[in-house]
C-alpha cells in the first residue's frame, strides 16, 4: 500500500519533466493543490488509525481531565511481543538473516534494489524515470546539467522608507521635523529628452479627455444619489483595483488614455 502511494506521488510529481534540459519552474502548477489534498488525506487516515485506542470507551476531554493512558495497554503490548510469529514476519526474518550472510545474492528479492536504486523491476536502464539520477533527487543533484531555477527576487533601485508627514499626527513638534527622504538615484536616462531638454507638455484642447472618464464616473455616482448600496464594483477604478498587483513592479494607472508625463524642469 505504501509503495503504491509512493508511486502515485511520483506520477503526480512535476519533477519528472526534468528530463527536459531547460526546466522552468511553473508557479501555476496544480501539483501543489493535488499534493496538499493527498497529504491531508494521508494525514487524516494516519491519525484516524492512531485513535484506535479510543474507539471504544470514553474519549478523554483534556479541558476537564486528561487521564494517563491505561497501564493495561503497555502490559498488552508486552504480551504481544511474546506471541508467535505470523507467517509474513517469519519470512521477513528469514530474508534478513540470509541478507546478512550474503548481501548481494538476495538483492532481487529487495524492492528497493529492484524499483528505486537501478530503475524499475529488473530493468537496469539509467534512463528510467525512477532512476535516482533523474527523478526525485534530480532537482538538487550537482551532476544535473541544464536545469534552470527561476529566481523571483527583484533587484530594487529605490531603497528608502515610505515617509509620512508626521507633523500631521497630533502631538509631534510640527515645526522642526522635516524629513527630506528624497530620491537621490543617479539613473536619469528616462527623465528627459535625448537632447537633455525638458519636454514641454502638449497644448491641450479645451475639452475634457472623454476617454479618461474617471471624473465623469465619480460625478455620475454622486448625482445618482446611490447611497448605501455602493461597492467597489461600481467605482471609478474598478478595472484598476482588480488588476493591479502590489509589489509587481509596475504600478497600475488610472487610465489608459492619458499621456505619459515627462519629468519637468522649472
Amino acid at each position, binding site marked *: 500500500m505504501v509503495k503504491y502511494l509512493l508511486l502515485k506521488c511520483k506520477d503526480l510529481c512535476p519533477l519528472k519533466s526534468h528530463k527536459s534540459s531547460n526546466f522552468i*519552474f511553473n508557479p501555476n*502548477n496544480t*501539483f*501543489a493543490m493535488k499534493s496538499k489534498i493527498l497529504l491531508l488525506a494521508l494525514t487524516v487516515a494516519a*491519525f484516524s488509525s*492512531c*485513535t484506535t485506542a479510543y474507539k471504544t470507551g470514553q*474519549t478523554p476531554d*483534556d*479541558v*476537564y481531565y*486528561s487521564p494517563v*493512558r491505561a497501564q493495561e495497554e503497555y502490559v498488552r503490548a508486552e504480551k504481544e511481543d511474546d506471541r508467535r510469529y505470523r507467517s509474513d514476519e517469519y519470512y521477513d526474518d528469514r530474508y534478513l538473516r540470509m541478507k546478512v550472510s550474503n548481501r548481494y545474492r538476495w538483492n532481487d528479492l529487495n524492492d528497493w534494489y529492484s524499483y528505486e536504486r537501478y530503475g524499475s523491476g529488473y530493468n537496469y536502464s539509467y534512463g528510467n524515470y525512477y532512476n535516482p539520477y533523474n527523478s526525485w533527487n534530480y532537482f538538487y543533484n550537482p551532476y544535473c546539467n541544464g536545469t534552470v531555477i527561476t529566481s523571483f527576487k*527583484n*533587484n530594487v*533601485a*529605490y*531603497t*528608502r*522608507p*515610505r*515617509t509620512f*508627514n*508626521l507633523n500631521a*499626527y*497630533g*502631538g509631534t513638534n510640527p515645526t522642526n521635523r*522635516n*524629513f527630506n*527622504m528624497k*530620491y537621490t538615484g543617479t*539613473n536619469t536616462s528616462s527623465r528627459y529628452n535625448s537632447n537633455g531638454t525638458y519636454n514641454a*507638455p502638449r497644448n491641450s484642447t479645451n*475639452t475634457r*479627455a472623454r476617454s479618461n472618464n*474617471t*471624473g465623469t464616473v*465619480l*460625478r455620475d*455616482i*454622486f448625482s445618482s444619489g446611490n*447611497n*448605501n448600496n*455602493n*461597492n*467597489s464594483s461600481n467605482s*471609478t477604478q474598478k478595472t*484598476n483595483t482588480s488588476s493591479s498587483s502590489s*509589489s509587481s*513592479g*509596475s*504600478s497600475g*494607472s*488610472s*487610465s489608459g*488614455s*492619458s499621456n505619459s*508625463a515627462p519629468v*519637468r524642469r*522649472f
Partner: protein
Amino acid sequence: MKRIFFVLTLIVSCSSLFAQEPADALRYSWYAPGGSARQQAVGGAMASLGGDISSIYVNPAGLGFYKTGDFVLSPGFNLSNNKSTYYGRTEKDKKNSFSFGTSGLVIAGPSDPDRKGRTGSGAFALAINRTANFNSRVLYRGLNTQSSYSQKFLEELKNNNVTTDAAASDYPFGSSLAINTFWIDTANGWNAGNKTFKSLATPLLGTGGLLQEQQITNSGGITELALAFAGNKRDKLYWGVTMGIPLLNYSKESVFTEADPTNNTANNFDFASITENLNTKGTGFNLKAGLIYKPVEYVRLGLAIHTPTFYHLTDRYNASVTTNTESYQGSYTQSSDLFTDGQDGSFSYWMMSPYRVMISGSYVLREIEDVRKQKGFLTADIEYVNYKASSYTSDPGDGGLGNNNNSAADEYFKSLNKAIDNNYKGALNFKVGGELKFTTLMTRLGFAYYGNPYKDLAGAKGNRLLLSGGLGYRNKGMYIDLTYVHNMTKDVNYAYRLQNSPFAPANIKSTTGNAILTVGFKI
C-alpha cells in the same frame, strides 16, 4: 511547491518588516487573534482553562493539562463587510477569504515521580495559526469642502524647502508625480522669485468642494508557527513556554480620487487620482510564558506574558498619478517606475510589536475522568496591550539605504516612534465564554471586547466586539467543533492627513463573520 519555495526564500533571505506610519504599527497589533473552534467559541478566552491546543498562543501552561495527545486541523472562512461614512455619505464593500485556526500536534505523557513520589506530566506542541487576518475591502466617498489630497504634496515640498527641479524628480512616490501631472504646479511669479507651489484642485474648495473617493483592498495576514513545552506538578501548578515565529504578509492596494463635482470644463480641474501599492513581508520572533494554578478543585487561575514580537520586515511599493487639468495642461499619467527603472521601491527595517499581559480565571465542573460527569465550564480573560509600545528602528544591514539617508531614516523612525506614543495608548481586552457539556455533545457561547487603542487626537476611536457560538462533538477518539464568530469593529481611516488644514477620517463599521471547523484526533 510554490509555498515551499516562498517559505525557503523567507528563511534564506531573513526577510524584513515594513511599516512606517503609526497606522501600520496598530494594524500589526490590534486584532482579534484566531484559534481553534472551541477557543473561538468561548470568546478566545484560554489563559486559565487549558487542555486545548490553542493554549499554545495564549497561555502555554494550558498545554500542561495534557496527558494524552492531539492532532488538530482548523480550516475556516471569513466574510468581511465594511460600511464607511465620510462627510455624511455611507458606502459598503465586502471581501471573503479562506483562513485557518490553530492546527497542529500535541504530544504528552506522565513524568516520572520525583524523590517525594509527586507525579506530574509533560507536553510538547507544534502548531500553526492564522493569528491575524488582514483581508478586507474599504470604500468611501464624500463631498469635501475643506481640503484637497494635493495639499499633502504642498506641505511636503514646503517642509523640505524644495525650490528647484528636485520637486519633479526627488519624490517619485507622491509629490513628483503630482507636479509632473499638474495636480500641483509652480505658483504664479515663480521666475520672479515666488518659489512656491499651488494646487489645481484647491480652488474648487471655494466653489462647491471636491468629490473624493478612497478604495482600499487589504490582503494577507500573520501566520504564526509555534513550538511549546509545558508541564505540571501534582496537577496543581502548570507552566509552559512558547517560542513563536510569525510570518507577516500584508498587501494593500489603494486608489484615491478627487474630482470636480460640476461639469464646468473651464475651471482647470477635472480629476486627479493616485494609486499606491504596498507589500510588506517579514518574519518575527516572540516568546510566551505562563502559569496556571488550581488552588481548589473546580477553580483555575492563569497568568500569561507575551514578549513583544521582533519583526524584520521589507516594504515594496510603487505609485502612479493621473491628473486631468482640462484646458490648463490636459491629461497626464506618471508612475514611480519612471524614476526607479521599472522596479519597486524597497526598504527593510525592524519593528517591535507591543507586549501583552493577561490574567484569567476558570470554573470547571467537574475535573473528573468520567465524561458523563463533566458538565461544563466558565472562563474569563483580561488582557492588557500597550499599543504605544510599538516601535521602529532602521536596519543597518539594509544595503540600499546607505550614506546620508541612514541617519535621516533613524531620525524619521525616532519621530515615528514619538508619533506612535502620542497617538496610541494601552487598552484592556475582555474575553468571556462558557460551555455546557452533555457527555459527547457540547454547546458554547462567548463574548469579547477589545478596547480603544487611540488617544482621541483627531476624532480617532475604535473598538471590537465579538459574539460567538459553537457546537462540539467528541467520541470514538476524535472530536469536531464548529464555531461562528461575529466580529463588529468600529475604526477610522484617514485618506490623508494635513499639517495646516482640516482633514477628517472615514468612520468604518466592519462586520466580519468567521466560521471555523476544528477536527481533532486523540493520539
